[in-house]
């Protein structure tokens, strides 16, 4: 019995740590991009490296959780759903890392008149991820609250879409940007950042089904 409870505690801690990693990635993502938009490229690169390391740590945790859930024969009824959720959350980390890496590689020139929109878009996308993590935490500990957080994710995702749209319109209508390729580059990065909120939303779609299954 004691052995069993130590195993459950172990997995419980791993899941908590995993969710913390996602939060850390989201916060670093926001700080990194803000650094980039403010031209502090060295600081941006440092944070990008941190995101990269966190992504590897999260991957290890994910594998551990998977292994332990199966080898300890835990939650046989909800195991598939929990693993599904963990895998999907991993996609969010992957998107954050990829977007940061695109900035690092392509070094897009962000025009000053677009800077505030980019910052706002980043903040909103990160808010969606933070609410997603809260929803995931509620799935484990407080199932009745899951939908409240999911609704907030949907709200922020919608907001992100609107800011993305505004940003793209500004980029294409402005006379400050001369080259078409640069306009396209701005559009591309607006879409990439917004993808973070889209990914949070798609995880929520699944999470809401898992939550219904758990409450039945």
């Amino acid at each position, binding site marked *: 019995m004691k052995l069993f409870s130590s195993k*459950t505690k172990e997995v*419980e801690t791993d899941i908590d740590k995993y969710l913390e990693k996602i939060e850390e990635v989201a916060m670093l993502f926001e700080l990194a991009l803000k650094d980039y938009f403010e031209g502090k490229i060295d600081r941006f690169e440092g944070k990008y490296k941190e995101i990269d390391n966190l992504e590897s740590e999260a991957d290890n945790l994910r594998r551990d959780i998977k292994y332990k859930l199966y080898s300890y024969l*835990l*939650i046989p*009824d909800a195991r598939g759903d929990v693993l599904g959720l963990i895998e999907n959350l991993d996609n969010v980390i992957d998107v954050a890392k990829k977007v940061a890496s695109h900035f690092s590689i392509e070094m897009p020139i962000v025009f000053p008149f677009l800077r505030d929109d980019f910052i706002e878009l980043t903040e909103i996308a990160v808010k969606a991820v933070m609410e997603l993590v809260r929803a995931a935490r509620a*799935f484990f500990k407080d199932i009745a609250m899951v939908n409240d957080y999911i609704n907030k994710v949907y709200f922020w995702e919608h907001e992100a879409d609107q800011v993305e749209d505004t940003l793209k319109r500004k980029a294409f209508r402005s006379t400050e940007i001369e080259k078409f390729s640069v306009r396209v580059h701005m559009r591309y990065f607006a879409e990439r950042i917004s993808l973070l909120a889209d990914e949070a939303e798609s995880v929520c779609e699944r999470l809401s089904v898992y939550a219904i299954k*758990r409450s*039945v």
Partner: protein
Amino acid sequence: MFPTLIFLSSGLFLGWSLGANDAANVWGTAVGTRMVRFKSAALVCSIFVTLGAIISGSGAAHTIGKLGAINAIGGAFTVALAAALSVYWMTKLGLPVSTTQAIVGAIIGWNLYSGTQVQFDELYKILGSWVFSPVLTAVFAFFIFHLVKVIIRKAKIHLIRLDGLTRNSLILVGAFGSYSLGANNIANVMGVFTTTAPFGELDIGGLITLSGAQQLFLLGGIAISVGVFTYSKRVMYTIGSELYKMTPVAALVVVLSSSIVLYLFASKGLKMFLESYGLPSFPLVPVSSSQSIVGGVIGIGIAKKGRNIKYAILGRILFGWIASPVIAAVVSFISLFIVQNVFAQRVI
């Protein structure tokens, strides 16, 4: 001794059927939802069924003895055989049949064959309990489920920890349910033999003394255990996975409610305790664990506003309830005729 064992073989067969079939009522939801491994369930079940039978089996067995005072061991053999065959056949069809109904039907068959007046007082008591026990289980399940839901919500237990707690609780409640099953349903297996089996008192190493009836119950308990190990797996999966898509917590509530009801109808101690305080007590009657568990499942279904109950399977079970006593009575009547006239055995 040897001829006695041959005559008891039908009771042992019935015990095997009960183990194959009714143990699934206690463990089906736990095993069906993969929360408890079949082997662990079978082991705990066997130990506690046997303990329940020996320690608390006499009350309900007495009622069965009164329903049909079968006075020849050949008759008891045939009645138990008829019930066992009916249960075996229905188990083969995958229907969660009740041994209680089968044995009562078979005893009625003996009453009809021997021309003995049916003890209607006892019969009504038993029939009443058949209706009352699932309803009571449904009520228990309904309230316990709501209580558990509130506790889980307030305590905010982590899913993984809840899983561990539920799993341990399922084993504990399963042990209690097995004890109640043994205490209540041993009457179905060995009740018809209590007046005719020629066992004297047995002293085991000066530590425990088993009466004749307790030795019968021990044999019955072992037979049930063999049934559990050899044949109950499939029925467990039917109960656990097909009837109702249960969460493990709901499964726990169903088993707990059903176990309480079975215990209420079996415990002499509880009956005496309630009566000593002038409270209404429960008759010591063998009740059907199948009916009880279905009552519990319905209770949960009502608590969840009727979602996910598979009515077609429920209908098949209801059909089994009516069919099993009728089939057992007919089989019993025909078997008694054959045993008396073809094998020249005294059955009355």
